């Protein structure tokens, strides 16, 4: 296969993928990294990065306009798959943002930060979007071990976030990371070959690059 070892960054026309591409290239040790809207390239890739920016209804529409849904669902079935930001949210069944259906790989919904609960410990109002560097608490399994994509990253490390909605999984067993912003919310999920984060590893300095490097080497 010509594209063996190739990493595909899915481009469905939403937002700026250059940052994601640059960061993946930086850790890819010379492997080919394609930004692509071509289902055939996605199918040929060894692993897939699914980013996203903007509003989820627009993202879903653009994804389908390019005919990428089947290739994406196939990739999520068996390739190492990394969702980022809206690319995490789109894996769920439904979003409150625009009352739109997602890809339905995970049971649960995407909810907006509840205005009434957005105050910090000192009673100061918290702004939405949640923008900036916040801590990600890593979920550990029964043996006390965190997901391999957290390897070498301290528990509670800060990552860069920009979002107004968060995922609320029906199955708490997929939660791989949590963050507090007014309320505790799920900031990472994992199941089999899928790992997805609400933060932007491509903008999260050394911690983010470590996560991306772990993804490049991950054999789920």
């Amino acid at each position, binding site marked *: 296969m010509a594209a063996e070892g190739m990493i595909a960054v899915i481009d469905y026309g*939403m*937002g*700026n993928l*250059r*940052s994601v591409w*640059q*960061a993946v290239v*930086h850790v890819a040790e010379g492997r080919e990294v394609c930004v692509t809207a071509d289902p055939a390239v996605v199918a040929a890739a060894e692993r897939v990065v699914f980013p996203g*920016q*903007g*509003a989820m209804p627009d993202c879903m529409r653009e994804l389908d306009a390019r005919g990428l849904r089947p290739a994406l669902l196939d990739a999520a079935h068996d390739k190492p798959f990394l969702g980022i930001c809206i690319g995490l949210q789109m894996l769920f069944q439904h979003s409150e943002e625009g009352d739109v259906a997602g890809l339905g790989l995970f049971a649960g919904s995407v909810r907006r930060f509840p205005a009434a609960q957005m105050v*910090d*410990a000192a009673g*100061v109002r*918290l*702004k*939405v*979007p*949640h*923008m*900036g*560097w*916040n*801590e990600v*608490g890593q979920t550990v399994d029964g043996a006390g071990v965190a997901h391999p994509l957290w390897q070498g990253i301290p528990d*509670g490390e*800060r990552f*860069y*976030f*920009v*979002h107004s909605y968060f995922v609320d999984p029906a199955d708490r067993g997929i939660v791989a990371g949590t*963050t*507090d*912003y007014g309320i505790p919310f799920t900031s990472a999920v994992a199941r089999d070959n899928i790992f997805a984060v609400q933060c932007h590893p*491509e*903008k*999260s*300095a050394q911690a*983010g*690059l470590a996560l991306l490097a772990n993804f490049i080497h991950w054999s789920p």
Partner: protein
Amino acid sequence: MALAKRIIPCLDVTAGRVVKGTNFVNLRDAGDPVEIARRYDEQGADEVTFLDITASSDQRDIILSIIEACASQVFIPLTVGGGVRVIGDVRRLLNAGADKVSINTTAVQNPDLVAEASAKVGSQCIVVAIDAKQVAPGEWAVFTHGGRNRTELDAVAWARRVQELGAGEILLTSMDRDGARSGFDLALTRAVSDAVDIPVIASGGVGNLQHLADGVTEGRADAVLAASIFHFGEFTVRQAKEYMRERGIEVRL
């Protein structure tokens, strides 16, 4: 666990070099933009902002190559402002590797650009920069064209308006304080921060580390921006963060 307050070094760029002036004039050379951005990243800067203060349009493309070089080496958010007039300018900067684009004069002249840009590229990419000057106690007017032209707009009302238009963040500069090193205009910062739901970056006037902390605690800014205290080696970003942490402010260290 809480969201960290951000420290953002700002690089005023012209003709491919970082410069710093006082009250928008008297520019001094401070070095190579990519090298400086890398140094700030290593010191733990939470973002870096480039303001293209190039006057002539034929030099505009220089900023694009600077952003390209920077984005391939620095993996923290990059904001770029200055001379953004049409949606094509926004796209070019994002394609070069900027994460956010800051719009100032054109937002006043053509508020539709803010709405159009945030609809097309997402509000998280659109920062509206407001240059404000006190005109009466508790009252600030918006200025444009690098501080040369006074508008009819009230800074607090304009901040609310740009939020409605779709801005994702406000970069608020006090023209009275810019370059004066006497601290942020805390009353202005507080008034704007309390008036909007989107994050506010305080800018203009930082002369010491206490000023940064005051911007957060008294000004209620979500992020603080400074230039000269970092450029000339007076303080590192890390020192600024350690100081803020001692003051009980949540920072990324």
